[in-house]
């Protein structure tokens, strides 16, 4: 769906390259994530790809068409939710959606149905200036879904949300992926990235040192062991066993048969561990 070759970008009037010859692909129907600390260039990449920033170097193809030759109708099937909610504060939630629906030629979704999805139906007639940041984030998110986008750009979609509302948003994202929507999201939350993204790219100082599937990253960088926590004579104990030949490992079988098992976990590395290991940088900046 998206092919990016040697993309570079510097903001006008500055020498510093924010994006340094990055290349990646996003396949149709996948959730692809950029994971990296603040200021790494994640949002800039999204802004280039959704056409907000011009004057970039390299090639960006979307559905085989060069981004620089894209017509305005390109936006009929694009959805963008920004990191900071940008809404008409003097309009109600419903009016915000209705007004933005008027900017599309194609048929748009029922705003009330969208409000219901993020539990804002009770606030449909409230002016947005009275909304909390979390409510604005949710409204801004569903606004991006008005035109039934085939390609969705999400910039830090769970930023500023409480765990309950973050869960709602993540469920919607997973549901959209099931429906075949291609999603490009940026985040610095490793849990979100791990849960939502099929493939990930680590971004550090405008470069992409790692692009891989989330599963493979965990397997490659994790220990191939199983950790068993159990109780023996009333005391909590733990042991690790190699995954290879685990079924025929007598010590493992012995614990399973004789002890009270508390937990059993494979020892995949967390994305944060992998990020630090690969990039040498902390994720939470």
């Amino acid at each position: 769906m998206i092919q990016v070759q040697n993309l570079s970008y510097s903001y006008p009037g500055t020498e510093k390259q924010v994006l340094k010859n990055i290349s990646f692909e996003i396949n149709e129907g996948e959730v692809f994530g950029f994971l990296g600390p603040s200021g790494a260039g994640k949002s800039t990449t999204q802004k280039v790809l959704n056409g907000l920033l011009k004057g970039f170097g390299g090639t960006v193809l979307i559905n085989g068409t060069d981004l620089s030759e894209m017509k305005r109708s390109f936006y009929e099937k694009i959805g963008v939710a920004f990191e900071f909610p940008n809404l008409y504060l003097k309009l109600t939630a419903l009016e915000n959606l209705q007004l933005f629906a008027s900017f599309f030629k194609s048929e748009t979704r029922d705003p009330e149905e969208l409000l219901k999805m993020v539990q804002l139906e009770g606030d449909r007639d409230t002016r947005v200036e009275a909304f909390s940041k979390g409510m604005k984030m949710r409204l801004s998110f569903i606004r991006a879904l008005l035109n039934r986008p085939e390609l969705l750009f999400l910039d830090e979609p769970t930023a500023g949300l409480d765990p309950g509302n973050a869960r709602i948003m993540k469920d919607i994202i997973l549901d959209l992926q099931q429906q075949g929507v291609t999603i490009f999201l940026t985040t610095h939350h490793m849990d979100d990235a791990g849960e939502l993204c099929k493939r990930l790219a680590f971004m550090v100082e405008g470069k992409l040192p790692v692009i891989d599937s989330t599963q493979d990253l965990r397997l490659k960088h994790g220990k191939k062991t199983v950790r068993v926590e159990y109780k023996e004579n009333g005391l909590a104990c733990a042991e690790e066993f190699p995954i290879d030949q685990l079924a025929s490992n007598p010590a493992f079988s012995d614990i399973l048969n004789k002890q009270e098992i508390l937990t059993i976990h494979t020892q995949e590395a967390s994305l944060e561990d992998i990020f630090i290991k690969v990039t040498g940088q902390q994720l939470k900046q």
Partner: protein
Amino acid sequence: MNWRAIPYDYKMLKGDPMLILSLMVPFILWALMQFLFPFLDAMVLDRWTVDISPYYRQAGTFFLMLIPMMMGMVYGFIMLDERDGGIITAISVTPTGKSGYLKLRMGIPMFLSFIFIILYQLLLGLTGTLGILQVIVISLLISSQSLILLLVLGAFADNKVMGMAISKGFGILIMGPLLDFALPSPYNWIGAYSPLFWASRSLLAETHITFWLHASITFLFHLFLIWILFRKFTARSD
């Protein structure tokens, strides 16, 4: 033009003190000309035996120029408000885009200016020997002045604070017709840098030829400025 967006525009602006002020300015200017000018005329004649009544049309034309300027400034600031809130960015990633948004934003001050200018001229009897077509043409041209101010703010101001600084420079535009009225020939031509200079000359033209000549220059001058500023605005990354 996205007509469906207009009712929401009204909802957003309802109760906005800036809008109320902008709608009152033409009435204040009309009241100044209708009541203050005759009073001043009588007072000056009585005290200094100077008759200022021949300058009635010039004074009226000068005030008339303030109507589109005020409309352009008010809607320019509304636009800067939207820029501060990231609204323009959000519209940029819809099929309407920044240019579609701008057309909508330009339409309202242009329309309001046109209505107010026509009413102002008719109520104060400023049209002189101009025919209906000429009144409509010159009113449209003067209304388009609002677009220049709106676009200057949109193209050069990053936020409202910058907008305030830039709007202080707008006085230089209104100096154009003032210099034309105040200075003797050929020094009055110093004011020709301002498109208002040409617009006011059309309005005060004594003959059809001079009217159309000055109106044509005003048209080309405005077209050039609007084109440059529109491009500058749409090229911005927000």
